């Protein structure tokens, strides 16, 4: 998503004027990568002839309503034809209840669709999701569109909507979708999961296996070495005069390199040895325990057999 500038329109007064002034508009939407994968999965499983699929977004709202976090998503079956659109609302309600039981902290925040176009049907669905009965009232519902067409880039756009009145009898079909900036965020443990998944993206058959600790350590060290090599190549080319030097980069490098600690050689020896001894002690202990277990096991078996 190119991070351009966003024109943020304040939400004009809507039909529910009494409460409109107190509901803040979301200024930022945070998406967890897991929900994106769910949406893609749903796209893959859509029925024949369905152009786009829709579903519900669940997540959390910050205290003041300015930040909405989208944490998970589930699919809702719907039928769309040129003339009309049908959503299985019962399904949405039941599924939402089940999901809510498992994750009490997640509430309804909006819905998603897998095509970028916004048409009258989108407006209808948006109004359903913002409705009083079991929608996100009084907060605005978030609409996320994801272009999941294999032939073009995947782009994610998020909107909130307001009613824009053209004709009073068509009010339920008209909506002004206001784009809202979004960003991707994840927690520490999710990050390693995401990294693992991402390591498969360059492979031929799109799969990867769980790597052991040592192997991942090796990977990290190799990455650091590559980074250092790039930096040193840059520095030597600046020294040769082949590349114009950049004062900001130079200062940044000096600041970071001076962070290397200066330790007395003896101190280092002592620290290193004590650390190593701790580790080795525990390893010997665990090996002894394992050997003893094996012995016990063997003795028991002979005791029973004899």
């Amino acid at each position, binding site marked *: 998503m190119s991070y351009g500038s966003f024109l943020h329109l304040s939400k004009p007064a809507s039909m529910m004027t009494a409460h409109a002034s107190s509901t803040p508009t979301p200024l930022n939407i945070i998406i967890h990568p897991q929900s994106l994968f769910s949406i893609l999965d749903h796209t893959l499983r859509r029925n024949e002839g369905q152009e786009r699929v829709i579903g519900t977004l669940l997540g959390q709202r910050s205290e003041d309503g300015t930040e909405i976090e989208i944490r998970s998503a589930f699919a809702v079956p719907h039928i769309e034809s040129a003339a009309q659109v049908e959503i299985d609302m019962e399904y949405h309600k039941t599924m939402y209840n089940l999901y809510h039981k*498992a994750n009490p902290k997640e509430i309804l925040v909006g819905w998603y669709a897998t095509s970028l176009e916004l048409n009258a049907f989108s407006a209808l669905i948006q109004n359903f999701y913002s409705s009083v009965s079991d929608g996100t009232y009084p907060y605005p519902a978030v609409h996320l569109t994801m272009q999941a067409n294999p032939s073009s880039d995947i782009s994610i756009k998020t909107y909130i909507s307001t009613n824009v009145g053209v004709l009073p009898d068509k009010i339920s079909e008209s909506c002004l979708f206001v784009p809202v900036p979004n960003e991707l965020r994840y927690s520490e443990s999710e990050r390693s999961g995401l990294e693992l998944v991402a390591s498969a993206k360059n492979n031929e058959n799109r799969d990867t296996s769980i790597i052991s600790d040592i192997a991942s350590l090796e990977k990290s060290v190799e990455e650091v070495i590559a980074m250092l090599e790039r930096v040193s190549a840059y520095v030597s080319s600046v020294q040769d005069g082949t590349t114009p030097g950049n004062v900001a980069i130079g200062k940044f490098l000096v600041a970071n390199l001076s962070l290397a600690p200066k330790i007395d050689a003896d101190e280092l020896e002592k620290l290193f040895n004590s650390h190593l001894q*701790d580790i080795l002690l525990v390893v010997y*202990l665990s090996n002894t325990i394992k050997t003893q277990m094996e012995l016990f096991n063997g003795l028991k078996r002979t005791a029973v057999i004899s």
Partner: protein
Amino acid sequence: MAFPVTVLPELTTPVYSAVIDSGVLLKLTKHTSEAFPAPVCGLLLGLDANSVLQVTHAFPFPPSEGSGTSSSNDDASAPRSKANIRYQADMIRLLKEVNIEANPVGYYMSSYLGGFFSQALVDNLVALQAANPNSIVLVHDVTRSSQSSVSLKAYRLSAQFLATNKASGGKFSSEAVVKNNLTYLDILEELPISIKNSHLATALLQHLDSPAFTRKSDPTSFVSTSALAPNFDSLDLSIDPYLEKNVEFLLESVDDYYAEQGTFNYFQRQLAREQSKIQQWIQKTRSENALRERANLPTVSEDDWQKHFKVPTEPSRLDNLLISAQINQYCNQIEEYSSVASSKLFAIQNGLDIHN
């Protein structure tokens, strides 16, 4: 206690590895890490075909009611509680409408530093494997995942274990254990896992990595905050908290082991005493019978000792097996961790020596 059985146990071909969809992995890690340190579990759905078990979807079980006090056992046995079976049936019914496979292939659970060998695990797996012999349990160790790569293992009860279970009717007597060649190392067998991305997911990952998506949070800094920027937490040097906890758990398990050993020894002593008493009684009746025959009185059968003495029943060896397996697990973890930590130490020493 019925799981929705969609496949007859006799007709399944065995699987030798598991392929997990990337979305499932992310959902799993999100659920277990959010609920940390409480143990949680959820169900896995997918297909088993071509000797590979494909896990395509997963959903978490709701936390049990009244959780907070003594419910760690309830959560661990969530796949078998009545409320959850209903929840599961409802969920599967709804998911079928959006074309998601309605075939349970196992369950996932979180574990704190590898302590997952428990009675609940065994019961869950026995029930699941009765419905589908290819069921697996995915164990996600949250503490290790936050340090380095994701720690996810797939296990399944081994054939010897199931045979012993059936042969001894759940009691695990010593002879059944020896006859079926069951050691504590053979309780669970591990399946290799591979993670598979769909085409769209691969496209998304490529897109996330592209410069267009990298957002510089601060124009004056050069640190990119792309979603897929490399993570160097694994180069951290501190070992104490992790190693300490591990050793603590290890010592606790050894204590449990000795406690269990004590009960078994007690049983053995009791058995020996009863046996000697029975022998004495048999001798007595034999001599009495000899006297009675001479006096033409009815003899007392020697097998009547069963009416007078009760032989103590042998306690189940299952606890012993589980605790031994647990101890083994902790020891292996310590070894793996130490190999990484010691390599880092030697590398640092080498690096700083150059400066000196």
